[in-house]
């Protein structure tokens, strides 16, 4: 199944960062902190403040352009998650119908605004998490977390789940192919076989997870020492961190867009 294979590739490629990226010289910890602060700033935007969501979007877009990261790539790979986000706030316009203003013939309600801002906030967080993942790589993120003393046990669990994810997807792809070959002309899976397919998928992937873990162990993976990163912090990282945090905070706390908006209105 092509979509599944795509997903497998996506997950695997997140393993390590692209060395050619202009962000390669920045310490993973700096990128991690930036992404975390961004997530906090975005999610704390009040729910009717579309202008601030917009401002944070502008910041992230600028970031992507500056560091040559591709939002399109993120959309293409994670479109399912974006779709999911869209449905998260879908009940807001129904529940919250207070009319805020009228645009042409449409009554714009506060529910519509809050749904939109919820979607934007989610989408921006997703984009920034994706940018972090592609510019850092899973292993580097883990070593950054280790540097700030996140417990090793937690890191190992995250790492193994991440490893397990590819196996699960691969098994899903195999099981699905085997099914399709014996059920030609069918679209999707007939519900009567879901149980047994999912069952065999889980069993097989767990089996393989065990062997893969053995293979990691035999090649020197020691959970207690993993993710020790020796790359030193450098000036570039400090500069990056300071500039990112300042520019982000400015856009978040100074309502530039509503100010511009009021200028236009007047």
């Amino acid at each position, binding site marked *: 199944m092509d979509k599944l294979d795509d997903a497998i*590739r996506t997950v695997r490629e997140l393993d390590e960062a692209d060395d050619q990226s202009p962000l390669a010289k920045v310490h993973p910890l700096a990128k991690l902190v930036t992404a975390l602060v961004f997530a906090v700033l975005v999610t704390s935007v009040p729910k009717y403040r579309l202008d601030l969501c917009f401002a944070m979007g502008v910041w992230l877009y600028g970031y992507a352009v500056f560091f040559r990261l591709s939002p399109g790539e993120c959309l293409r790979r994670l479109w399912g998650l974006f779709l999911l986000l869209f449905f998260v706030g879908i009940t807001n316009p129904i529940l919250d119908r207070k009319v805020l203003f009228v645009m042409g013939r449409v009554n714009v309600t506060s529910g519509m605004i809050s749904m939109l801002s919820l979607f934007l906030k989610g989408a921006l967080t997703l984009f920034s998490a994706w940018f972090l993942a592609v510019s850092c790589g899973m292993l580097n993120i883990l070593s950054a977390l280790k540097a700030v003393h996140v417990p090793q046990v937690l890191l190992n669990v995250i790492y193994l789940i991440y490893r397990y994810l590819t196996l699960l997807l691969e098994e899903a792809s195999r099981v699905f192919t085997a099914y399709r070959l014996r059920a030609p002309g069918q679209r999707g899976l007939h519900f009567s076989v879901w149980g047994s397919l999912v069952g065999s998928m889980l069993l097989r992937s767990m089996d393989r997870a065990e*062997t*893969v873990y*053995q*293979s*990691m162990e*035999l*090649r*020197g*993976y020691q959970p207690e020492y993993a993710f020790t990163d020796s790359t030193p912090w450098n000036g570039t990282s400090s500069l990056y961190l300071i500039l990112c945090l300042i520019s982000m905070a400015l856009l978040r706390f100074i309502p530039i867009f509503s100010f511009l908006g009021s200028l236009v209105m007047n």
Partner: protein
Amino acid sequence: MIRLNDISFAYDRSRPVLSHVSLQIGKGERVGIAGANGAGKSTLLKLLVGLLFPDPMGKTPQESGWIGIDGIQVTKKNLAAVRQKIGYVFQDSDAQLFMPTVEKDVAFAPKNYGLDAVQTQKRVEEALSLVGIEDLRKRSVLELSGGQKKLVSLATVLSMRPDILLFDEPTIALDPGNRRRFIRILPELGGTHLIVSHDLDLLLETCGRIILLSEGRIVADGDTETILRDQSLLEANGLELPLLIQGQRLASSADQRTQ
């Protein structure tokens, strides 16, 4: 040197998988372990690298036998030291490979052993060129054929520069061309080799010594020619004469008839 001294093992107590196995393999030897399906061959390899531990069978560890690799006993405490000496090529290459690209998979072990980027890269180059797969370097592991995956698995353990290589059914998924290639590469790798297989032709061509395992016991241990020509011994243990020897026999009996 590999030593097993009176090793017994069972996954569940009622069905012993290995019983009182003792053997000794010298430095630089290439030994084949032959036996039918379920004879306990893979289990034996897993014991050597400490993926499994011998069953004490109610006795104290001193009485229950031990495994030594270059004088280091395989215990939980010594695992890191033991494993650094051994490269284990899995039967299922899919299970062995998990990194996004060939290059990164081959680099996994040296990185874990604390080599820096430059040294790691050197090890990667060395392993890829030993196996002759430099051109696969940037490929995604998902896109490789069975034969290529096997060669990559081999490279991923060679990058640790192990003294001992263990192969579990190395040729089982290979086509004749790749099988040939594997056989050609083997002598160039150096070190002690232990090859588990029921592909007796492979063992005939590559090994000087054969250990025949049946239902968890060693039923024969000797030089390749003697054991692999012993038709009744092989058949009693669920195996057949290697095709090469069957062919030689057919040819010589045909010769006798024409004379």
